[in-house]
């Protein structure tokens, strides 16, 4: 009996399961006992209680009288916001640098690789400290802010900029943009169908640009062409009016995107190198123009190599955004930290943070796996 592989397998698994359950039970038992003796409250009831602390910047309405749940939601939105912007910025910067590293221009390639080798070999936390330090110490105080006209002001308090006063024309322009995006997608679909059916190619770039520029402009004009701006004006100790970006936000965004860009550059470089030279030569032999070769032959094949590691860089960036807590940007972890200190309910607070990050990781993975699968379908 004991020599049967099946039986031994079952025995091993039963033992392992028993060990895991045993250790888990031991830890949970200890925890419950400790919670009881220290009279720490348990449960998620605290989420409904009033938080009582300020949050520097929020995207939803929040004040200290709101609940802990609301505070955590505000923190989560900040995390998502800075991660989303960071992903866009890091992708653009990283792609440029990755292509630059492969440039035939010696100087450009050297500069790009110096950037990559410097930035990715230094802890992100220290880079954030330096970014934050530069923004708060080296920039002038509010009264001597660096001004670009009377529209943009840069000072220790961050970036203040003028913003259009709300007017029907602007929301019409927004609708115009949405319509343009839908129009471009529809045009692309129609053009593809047309090409499949008849082989005739419709131009894509110019109609797309025309729609993207024209429709919002039309909306703006129809809405009365509003031009009034809300300008920042120095009053009291800080600027009033306009929109603001805090130094914490700018430092975090700059640090996250420049750091991740170095890794994305390597991913992009690897992907482009992975495409066989023969592919490009074959496309040339078919008479495709350089732009078409890149768009129709090289890029689709490079993307297959690029997408999986790119996904993990996006995930890293999102997880790294939790370093916000070190420079005082109120992300999810920072808010949870304050919550934990005030309520003493560390287990619940950390569990919420972990669950949220796990869900974000899972969501990004699923999305990118779907995109990856779509790319792969084109393979034979």
């Amino acid at each position, binding site marked *: 009996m004991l020599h049967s592989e099946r039986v031994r397998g079952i025995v091993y698994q039963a033992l*392992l399961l028993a060990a895991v359950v045993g250790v888990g039970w031991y830890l949970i038992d200890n925890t419950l006992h400790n919670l009881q003796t220290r009279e720490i409250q348990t449960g998620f009831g605290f989420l409904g209680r009033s938080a009582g602390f300020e949050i520097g910047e929020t995207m939803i309405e929040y004040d200290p009288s709101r609940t802990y749940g609301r505070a955590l939601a505000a923190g989560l939105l900040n995390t998502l916001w800075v991660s989303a912007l960071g992903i866009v910025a890091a992708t653009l910067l990283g792609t440029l640098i990755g292509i630059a590293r492969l440039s035939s221009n010696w*100087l450009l390639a050297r500069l790009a690789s110096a950037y990559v080798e410097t930035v990715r070999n230094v802890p992100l936390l220290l880079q954030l400290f330096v970014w934050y330090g530069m923004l708060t110490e080296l920039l002038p105080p509010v009264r001597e802010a660096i001004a670009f006209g009377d529209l943009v002001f840069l000072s220790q308090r961050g970036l203040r900029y003028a913003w259009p006063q709300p007017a029907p024309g602007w929301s019409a322009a927004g609708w115009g943009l949405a319509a343009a995006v839908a129009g471009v997608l529809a045009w692309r679909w129609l053009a593809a169908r047309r090409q499949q059916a008849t082989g005739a190619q419709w131009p894509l770039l110019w109609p797309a640009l025309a729609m993207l520029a024209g429709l919002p402009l039309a909306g703006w004009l129809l809405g009365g062409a509003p031009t009034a701006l809300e300008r920042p004006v120095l009053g009291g100790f800080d600027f009033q009016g306009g929109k603001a970006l805090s130094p914490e936000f700018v430092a975090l965004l700059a640090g996250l995107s420049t750091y991740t860009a170095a890794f994305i550059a390597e991913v992009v470089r690897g992907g482009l190198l992975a495409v066989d030279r023969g592919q490009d030569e074959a496309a040339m032999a078919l008479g495709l123009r350089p732009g078409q070769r890149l768009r129709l032959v090289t890029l689709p094949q490079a993307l297959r190599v690029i997408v999986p590691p790119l996904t993990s860089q996006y995930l890293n960036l999102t997880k790294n955004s939790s*370093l916000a807590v070190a420079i005082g940007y109120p992300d999810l*972890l920072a808010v949870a930290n304050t919550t934990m200190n005030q309520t003493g309910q560390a287990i619940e607070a950390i569990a919420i943070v972990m669950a949220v990050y796990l869900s974000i990781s899972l969501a990004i993975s699923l999305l990118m796996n779907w995109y990856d699968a779509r790319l792969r379908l084109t393979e034979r």
Partner: protein
Amino acid sequence: MSWLRTRLFSTPLNAALTMVLLALLAWGLPPALRWLVLDAVWGKAPAAACDAVRGHGACWAVVAEKYRFMLFGVYPYALQWRPAAVVALLTALLAVSGVKALWRPWLAAVWAAGIALTFWLMSGGLGLEPVRTEQWGGLPVTLILAIFGAAFAFPLGVLLALGRRSRLPVVRALSVVYIEAVRGVPLITLLFMASVMFALFLPEGMRIEQLLRAQVAIILFVAAYLAEAVRGGLQAVPRGQYEAAEALGLGYWKATALVILPQALRVAIPSIVNSFISLFKDTSLVVIIAIFDFAYAVKKSVETDFAWKKYFIEAFLFSILVYWIYCFAMSKYSQRLERELARGTRR
């Protein structure tokens, strides 16, 4: 001349690009050089000397003034030769381990001896004055967190990787859940957990020191990443090797230890080194739970002294340089290994 023509001015576009880049360098380099080197205050100098050049020259005097605190934290001043020896020892061990000719079984024994020596030098006893772990700080703590983290995470990572490829469903499921859960959360949340929750997990009266708790969190975190690196290696081992081992009558453990793992680990070495570089950088996150590693010692060294507080950028640049030297050396090494390996398999 022909080098210039082919590398910098091959096409009009390339020539224009070169000119733009040269112009940018000519605009940016001189002020940077002046700030970093020419107008900077070098060597030991009072803070007033730095105040005089503030704005156009760096203050490296802050490093000369604070380097002992930056490197060794609050370790007793008179005994700081001991952490200095530890830094030298661990750095030498890392360097020696990079030499392929020395990858012999006795290297493990050398490491064991080195780790024992590290402990003895840091904590004292046996003729040395004892020093409590709360007083450890600076670069040796960073090296210890990284090296011990890797040393203990490695076996765990190998087991998890094997578990993830096991035929036993329970083993596989547990491994997958562990690996994916840990990789899905930021290291800081694990460190927070270590610093506030470990105390609740343990029986009353049992306490673990803060440094050890952080070390455990780092080990648990890195193991998941190492597991994925090793799994990549395992997947690269051809099926025939498994079948051949089975045909020789080797059982699972013997086949794994003697046939599969040696080949898998060889392939996985570059990604293992890369995980180690990430780990080395990630140890700096312990700053957030106030553990005196190198980054925190540098931060504290300027934060706590009003006269030097303004010169934190120079202090951070110094710490960046130190981290960079370690990580750059390791990444160059990993790239070389990767090339060697590629050459080996192409033949």
